[in-house]
């Protein structure tokens, strides 16, 4: 039987029989579906990446107004495009940890205040120039400083000085930060010749692919960079086709016009997966759908109101009905198991009695006004309606006001006291907390101001003893869980799909969806 299975594996890996057929035949000889899936993945990986061919990707989240400047990357399409031609100093490894990319190695002073990145030698940009530490310095300067318009400014702000010494790039921080390498994986911080100061939109970098044709909002074509410094990047040509409409994107995958798509709508993901030649991939991530209240505005300044709302949230129902199971329950902190140094805490369950108790204790009687729109997160108005019902069982009146999609992020989010929103998460806890929960954070969208929390956050940055740091983060999580303005019912999975014409998918890749945007580069044409 083992011979038979091996025979099947090889055939499936070579694409001579379909995945569905392999699973069926394996099941016929008594292998469970899960085991068969693993076997197949191993066999395909064992067959090794094939070079050449064309991979076509159907992309959601891209518009014709998009810039090619990595400093202005703000959506999935832009990030996919910049990943092809540009590289950061360091990058997240698929299953945790940091991989040096354009930095050959990095180290810090004992107090985590001075960081040295040794720049890799012998790497050339696609315009033929050699990449040097000066290019790195110029890039980092373009993303920081008073003049910048970069989306990475929030990360760069804590840097006191930057300099080049020989082939090393040296950062000195205002305060110690043990997580600095994680910050350097930010998708804006791609090294460009002379920092991109000459032409930020030139799309010239050290990446595995070279941009051949760019029509923002329509189509991007890349060809393999023949001089790429390492053995990454398999397909000879990669085509990104922008298909923002969900139904059209799925249809393009089903009819074989594209080999892979991002953002499969959870509502139809089960149906899509049933097609014989298509696999839907889900990866748990740090992205979460949230209900956020301003803690400095009545009635949310009353912690009993917050607790009433938190106990009145039916989290499992949200995961089942809004995410269709493609996600996991949240616990009123922005952190989940996808973060390093995560400590689980007791799950807050739906409890109408406790909700009613806190509501009565708060003395509030007026209905709570919640603002929502479809682009705060998919199906947010439905989630608001579910919340309204689960609160009603506790006798808490909730009024839902639907706002237009257009302008939601500028007029409602971070302006109105209670609304639905979305956070895509960050690679480390420090960054997530510094971005949105520190008293002085720009995007403190819950107006959460807690001295103890701030002290812990700063102390944790300088703490190099992992056990102590872990405890500090656990304490901070507990403070937010009990006193924060964040109601976090669910973490959404990234749901992507590919056909069996291509292989090499890595399950549960850290970072963002579609293998942290590396799927087109790391996958290969199998059939």
């Amino acid at each position, binding site marked *: 039987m083992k011979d038979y299975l091996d025979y099947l594996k090889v055939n499936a890996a070579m694409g001579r029989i379909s995945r569905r057929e392999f699973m069926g035949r394996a099941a016929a000889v008594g292998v469970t579906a899960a085991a068969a899936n693993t076997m197949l993945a191993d066999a395909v990986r064992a067959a090794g990446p094939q070079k050449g061919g064309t991979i076509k990707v159907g992309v959601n989240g891209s518009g014709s*107004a998009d810039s090619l400047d990595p400093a202005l990357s703000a959506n999935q399409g832009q990030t996919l495009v910049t990943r092809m031609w540009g590289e950061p100093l360091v990058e997240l490894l698929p299953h945790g940890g940091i991989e040096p990319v354009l930095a050959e190695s990095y180290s810090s002073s004992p107090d985590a205040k001075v960081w040295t990145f040794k720049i890799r030698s012998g790497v050339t940009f696609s315009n033929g120039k050699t990449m040097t530490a000066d290019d790195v310095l110029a890039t980092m300067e373009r993303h920081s400083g*008073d003049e910048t318009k970069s*989306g990475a400014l929030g990360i760069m702000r804590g840097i006191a000085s930057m300099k080049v010494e020989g082939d090393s790039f040296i950062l000195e921080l205002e305060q110690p930060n043990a997580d600095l390498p994680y910050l350097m994986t930010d998708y804006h911080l791609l090294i460009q010749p002379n920092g991109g100061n000459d032409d930020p*939109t030139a799309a010239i970098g050290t990446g595995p692919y070279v941009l051949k044709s760019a*029509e*923002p*909002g329509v189509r991007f074509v890349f060809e393999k960079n023949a001089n790429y410094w390492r053995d990454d990047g398999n397909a000879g040509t990669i085509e990104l086709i922008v298909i923002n409409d969900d139904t*059209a994107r799925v249809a393009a995958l089903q009819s074989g016009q594209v080999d892979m798509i991002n953002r499969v709508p959870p509502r139809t993901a089960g149906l899509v997966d049933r097609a014989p030649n298509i696999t839907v991939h889900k990866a748990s991530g740090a992205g979460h759908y949230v209900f956020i209240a301003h803690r400095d505005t009545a009635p949310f300044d009353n912690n009993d109101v917050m607790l009433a709302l938190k106990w009145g949230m039916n989290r499992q129902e949200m995961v089942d009905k809004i995410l269709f199971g493609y996600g996991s329950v949240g616990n009123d902190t922005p952190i989940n198991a996808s973060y390093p140094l995560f400590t689980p805490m007791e799950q807050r369950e739906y409890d109408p009695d406790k909700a009613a108790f806190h509501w009565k204790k708060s003395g509030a009687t007026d209905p709570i006004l919640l603002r929502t729109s479809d682009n705060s997160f998919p199906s947010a108005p439905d989630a608001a309606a579910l919340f309204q019902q689960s609160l009603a069982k506790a006798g808490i009146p909730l009024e839902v006001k639907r706002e237009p999609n257009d302008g939601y992020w*500028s007029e409602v989010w971070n302006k109105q006291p209670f609304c639905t929103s979305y956070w895509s998460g960050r690679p480390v806890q420090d960054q997530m907390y510094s971005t949105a929960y520190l008293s002085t954070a720009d995007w403190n969208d819950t107006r959460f101001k807690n001295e103890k929390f701030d002290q812990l956050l700063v102390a944790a940055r300088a703490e190099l003893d992992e056990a102590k740091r872990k405890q500090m983060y656990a304490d901070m999580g507990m403070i937010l869980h009990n006193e924060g303005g964040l109601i976090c019912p669910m973490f959404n999975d990234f749901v992507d799909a590919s056909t069996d014409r291509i292989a090499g998918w890595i399950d549960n890749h850290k970072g963002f969806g579609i293998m942290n945007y590396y799927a087109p580069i790391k996958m290969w044409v199998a059939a």
Partner: protein
Amino acid sequence: MGPALKLVAQRLALGILLLFLVSILIFVGTLILPGDVAQSILGQSATPEALANLRAELGLNDPPLTRYFDWLGGVLTGDLGTALTNGKDIAEALGSRLSNTLFLAFWAAIISVPLAIFLGLLAVRYRERWPDKLISAVTLSTISIPEFLIGYVLMYFVGVKLGWAPTVSTIYDGMSLGQKLNSIALPVAVLTLVVLAHMMRMTRAAILNVMQSAYIETAELKGLTMFKIIWRHAFPNSIAPVVNVVMLNLAYLVVGVVVVEVVFTYPGMGQYLVDHVSKRDLPVVQACGLVFAAVYIGLNMLADIISILSNPRLRHPK
């Protein structure tokens, strides 16, 4: 031909005035929308400093009047400027989008206009009998179903199930004409189904109206065949209303097909405009608005001129 020329001149002058007013309306409308281009570009990752820097770079701190007249000055000298969002030259981007839109509209019109008129004639010839009723029923059903739904239905059955036509209609330079036509087969089919009924019904109604006249009775008494009466005597006298409807539908094919473009991811003007409206990219919105308005005004003018030329009484006024 004197009066026709005078009319054209009048209409042209009026059209230019209209375009000017349209540009003011679009400018004010975009200003009223919440948020600005800097905020839209940076999105959720905007910091106050980055916003301020971007605003200064894009010149958003100038007073609106200055910005409007800067833009107007550019347009009058033939310079549409560059997009605020991605710095691309608007004339170039717009040119390729416009030619895509016209390409799609052209092929949809080539199929739908003759088909609609032919079906209209057929319906008159067999009026109140089964062919008439069948034609009306089918075309009225297709115009009543929302176009995106027809799109999805065709996409699923023709594209995914039968595999006859691609579901993604992205076209780009370097494709041959055959490939392009194959690519736009489904959107052309959808657009044809959507515009057919309007033109067909108008043709039918206009000809039936003429058929009541005494000279048609004379023609019948002369012993002409029914189809010849319709084609030679009734149709020429109903050209004016038919041309009007045809032009309205042509205008729709150019300016109103954004939903079809989105469903089939066709890189036309509609999608381009919507993307830039949501980013508050004023110069692009202005340029698109002007082109759309010009198409509408131009086609309507053409309709008027054709109706006048087709009517000897208007052609040779006493």
